């Protein structure tokens, strides 16, 4: 079960957050700071999974971007680790490697995440199918 997904920059500033378990808005920043602190303090040769309270964090670094996923301890860490990569590959495909646009298109990244994860479960991993609704939306918007 996935509890949350965070995209964070190297300074620890949240770029995107999506929660699958109810966490009060006021409590999120401190949770995120704490989570990010733990992941950023890890060395490269250390493993990509961190215990945090009663759940686990899976994190993956892409240049200056960190993606951190909070999961319950019955989840398969490595499969989430690869899910993150699948997600990044989808972003890469959609934004055609123009990373700069990723963060300015917060809404579209969210739409992509909504296709991949729902209620904390992985619901789609096929890249074409993940992007299909978004591409259709774009087409409609162009037509307007």
């Amino acid at each position, binding site marked *: 079960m996935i509890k949350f997904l965070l995209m964070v920059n190297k300074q620890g500033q949240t770029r995107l957050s999506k929660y699958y378990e*109810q966490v009060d808005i006021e409590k999120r920043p401190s949770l995120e700071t704490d989570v990010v602190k733990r992941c950023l303090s890890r060395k490269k040769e250390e*493993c990509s999974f961190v*215990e945090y309270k009663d759940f686990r964090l899976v994190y993956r670094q892409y240049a200056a971007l960190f993606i951190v996923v909070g999961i319950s301890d019955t989840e398969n860490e490595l499969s989430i680790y690869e899910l993150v990569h699948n997600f990044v590959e989808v972003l890469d495909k959609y934004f055609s490697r123009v990373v700069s646009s990723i963060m*300015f298109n*917060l809404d579209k990244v969210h739409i992509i995440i909504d*296709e991949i994860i729902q209620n904390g479960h992985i*619901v789609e991993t096929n890249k074409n*199918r993940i992007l299909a609704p978004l591409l259709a939306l774009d087409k409609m918007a162009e037509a307007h």
Partner: protein
Amino acid sequence: MSDVVEKTLSALPSLLSLDSQAGAGKLSPSSKLGNLIKGITELTSKHEEETLIKKELESIKEQVASPNTTMRQMKEIMVRAIYCEMLGYQASFSYIHAIKLAQQGSVLEKRVGYLAVSLFLNETDEFLLLLVNTVLKDLQSTNLIEVCMALTVVSQMFPKDMIPAILPVVEEKLTHPKEIIRRKAVLALYKFYLIAPNQVQHIHSKFRKALCDKDPGVMTASLHIYLQLIKENPESYKDLTGSMVTILRQVVGGKLPLDFNYHSVPAPWLQIQLLRILAYLGKEDQGTSEMMYDVLEESLRRAEMNHNITYAILFECVKTIYTVHPKSQLLEKAAECIGNFVLSPKINLKYLGLKALTYVVQQDANLALPHQMTIIECLDHSDVIIKRETLELLFRITNAQNVTVIVEKMLEFLRLTCDDYSTIDLVGKVAELAEKYSPDNVWFIQTMNSVFSLGGDVMQPDIPNNFLRLLAEGVDNVEDRQLRLFAVDSYVSLLQGETAKLPQRFLQVISWVLGEYSYLREEESDPGSVMRLLARLLDQRHTSTETRSWVLGAMTKLCSSPVSVALARDVCERYSGSLNTVLRQKAQELMILSQDTKLRARVLPAEGRLESPEVDSSLSFLDGYVSDALAAGAAPYKSPHQRQEDLVQEKALSLEPYGLSLPVSLSSCSITDRRSPTLLSMSSGLSGNSTELSHQEGSTTLKLEGVKRVWGKDGYLAQQQSAGETPTPLVELPSPLLSPQSPPSQKPSSGLEPDQEKRQLASSLFVGLGSHNSVCLMGRAETAPRHFRRKPRGESSSGASEGSSDSSHSSRSAAVDNLLHSNLLDSTTVASEGGAATTTTPQQTSQRTLDHTTSNGNPHVEGTEQRVEAGGPLSLIRGNGMVAVVPPTHTQTDPQTQQDLHPAPALERPRDLPLTSHLPAELSGLARSEFTPLCSDQDSSLALSACRVYKEDALVLLVFISNNNDSALHQMVLQLTCKELEISCISGSPLKEVKGHSVSVCLHTVVMKRASVQVELAGLLSYQRPLGQPQAAQFSLSLSLKHFLRPLTVSTGDYGKMWLSFSHDLKQNLRLVTTEHQEPLTATLDALKGKLHLHVVDIIGSEGIVACRLLQGPGQGQPCLLHCRVHADSLAVWLRSPVPELPDSLLYHCQKALTET
């Protein structure tokens, strides 16, 4: 990380650089969001951020309120609002605009509106109601994209109460020609299932259709529902095993379209999902497991590619193989796989390997053996996460021989960690291990000292509570004295040193122990020394008020000598003016008691300390008051969780006792009976009684989790029995995985020559595991009695003889016996699962024993399997009161039940019709109740009587219609109604008429919808005599919960798992039944078993675990678990169940059953 990934990465310009390049203007000149992000990135302090966001929110607020804002602008504004909320600043004013955007925007704007709604609102938000109409409209839209986004938002959040409004539309989408719509509809239904399972009960067949959908995506979506359903109730979905296996085979075989591949691995996440489902289906079910062996093997074989994702699949596959019914060949391959993980230089794989190992050693501790050296290396790994995971693994393989080394490693870790959560977790584990496997008193006290110092004030409060209880309980024998004396000595020396660093909790423990047991050392030291140390504690500035009150309490117990009295007077003077009322009170007590020796002797008798004061935790002295209050109309007591439950469900207070439509006399008596379970269950909360405290987490009570389920245990326990004379059995565990021929040294860790020190560590860590140590796993099981030894002492009245020098040995034989019995019982129950319970004849047992003895030296796997088969469905009926499973169908073995169910044939009926002969043949062999006359008309021409037959899966209610007249009865209709019951007629054809002088029987199966103590069934028989008017006979019949209870045959291990997963619990003290020739516990449990059809899972020492289920339709049932513990003169019962009403009702019956005995 794969090379591909690295390349991709290096190609990506850094995200951050974009932020700091001040290029936002260039990148998205018109983007206000861009400016916002850029602005925030450049900030240096939280304060600046706050100012900036506040300003931004002001501007957003202004814009959304403006009538000139277009939807396109609104979309942009919403994204900014999302950004602000993401940073933790509420933008609640924008919620309504988000909904408006979803309602009015064109497609992309609409999608952003929905997105904002799903991010802003939570599932209980009332705003969501405003969305229902929009969703409904979009679901019916001709634009597929709109349908799609509506389904997406529905599967994320939807108000529970409004589901019926859109359910038909969503169901309709299940047959939509587009796969994406079908897929999303399935996911929406899954969401409905999660939030309101009863709303989608009727569409289970549609789920099946989705599972068989030609599109793999739709099928994948349906697996979410099935994973959930199967997890909750595997029995009902065994028929899906074949389909799941086929699907997995096709996926593994690459039958899916190529775009489902991830790095050339076909649909890896789907494979993982399927493997999880198979694990639930195959668990403890040999037949089902056999269906999946092939595909599991294929999965292992196919996943050879060197990529993270294949390892993720392998990990899941290994877990499944170790969860389903074991197959040696597969287990070997899985173990090999784990080996590769653990030995891998890739740190993530090593972690996963350790995790897998931690999982599998719970099945077979020997699996850790080949990896000893790797484990040792991981213990000193630079990565703290690896270290932590290794400790977790060691915790699982701890036994009496390696406990000191493992605990030392854990403490070492604890000393370095500063993470509260790890500390709490590990400290609890150390305390558990110390209590379970402690080799001697000195070690135990020292370890607990470390626990208290390290755990400090964050540890679970039950650790000190359990520890104190452990010290306090027990008879005054030499060993107990030594333990206490050692504790006292150790604390005195601690207090003589620096106390500033000791946590408050530890100081409180110290104060209590010193107050209680200092007298043990009194002879050899000067009487005032302890008093002075305590006084010094009071002087310390860091000592908290709470601790001070503990210290004062201890002083009150100690102030016997003149020196102490003088000291006490000083202290009193200081604290009698304290602003804290508790301290002032304690000081007053100390003052008075220290001056009045006689009073002190009476209040705190020196010799009385050993006996725990009699606490009437059932508060029975209040019974009179309570019954008066109840009679006056007061509501019965509800435990906090029940009240919580009531609040949640918003239902009125349960009026059950009053609602019973019993005859007046009965109902009044039921109220007085009832007060106890409902009113007195507060005892745990109030009494502060140490028994109750110990129940928290159950960490020291009967070890539910600790009972290891080992493959082939069946065999090795029997061996133990055969080798019963040898105190340390040297028999080899027939492990299906590790044949003794392959010593663990065959796999040295990656060619490294381990140094002497590590070798030593390895030998001390893994002692007690495997063959080469000459002490087999048995050493592990053998130590368990030690754990049970600690608590029962003092209570087991036979303890007087236990006072020999080393009770761990003196009590061992008895305890081993005890354990053996229970484990044997356990293992046979496992073997009997699914099969009908039959008795094992002594021949059979000895046959089995023989089997194991012969396979003793050279255990092969085949042997294990053969044995299991040969053993077949077995259940053991034992002489010493531990009767395994006696379902009502086999009551012949249970005299009590027999008596209850087969009363003397003299029926009270006016005409003694031989109704027995009218029992349907298929029911005649089953246990049944007596015949109860229901009603008869004036001239006894028609008489009705009832009888209950206790079938395994239902209660069959038989209504006998005896026609004693010459004329036949026509147009008969029998109606039974009761809102708490589910009644279904099973007579072949509903009878219409009964001839003269004959008897007809109507059969109904009855199950309880909701657990309740007693229900009243109303019956109406309408009939017509020839030439007569239509007539009707009314009757009522009360059925009690106990008629619907059946034994629940579970193993101790499963009991433990179930126990942890149930949330509704209730605690109560019951009276113990005492008989001449039985232990009180056994006698009590026997009485309960006889009267209520409970299943006694296990009895160990002074604790017993019992399980039953409440019938709820075929193949279903609500379990209830009871954990009983003898405490003083009563039986502390703790009930747990997944349903809130069951423990309460069952407790009532337990109480009644015991009162009647």
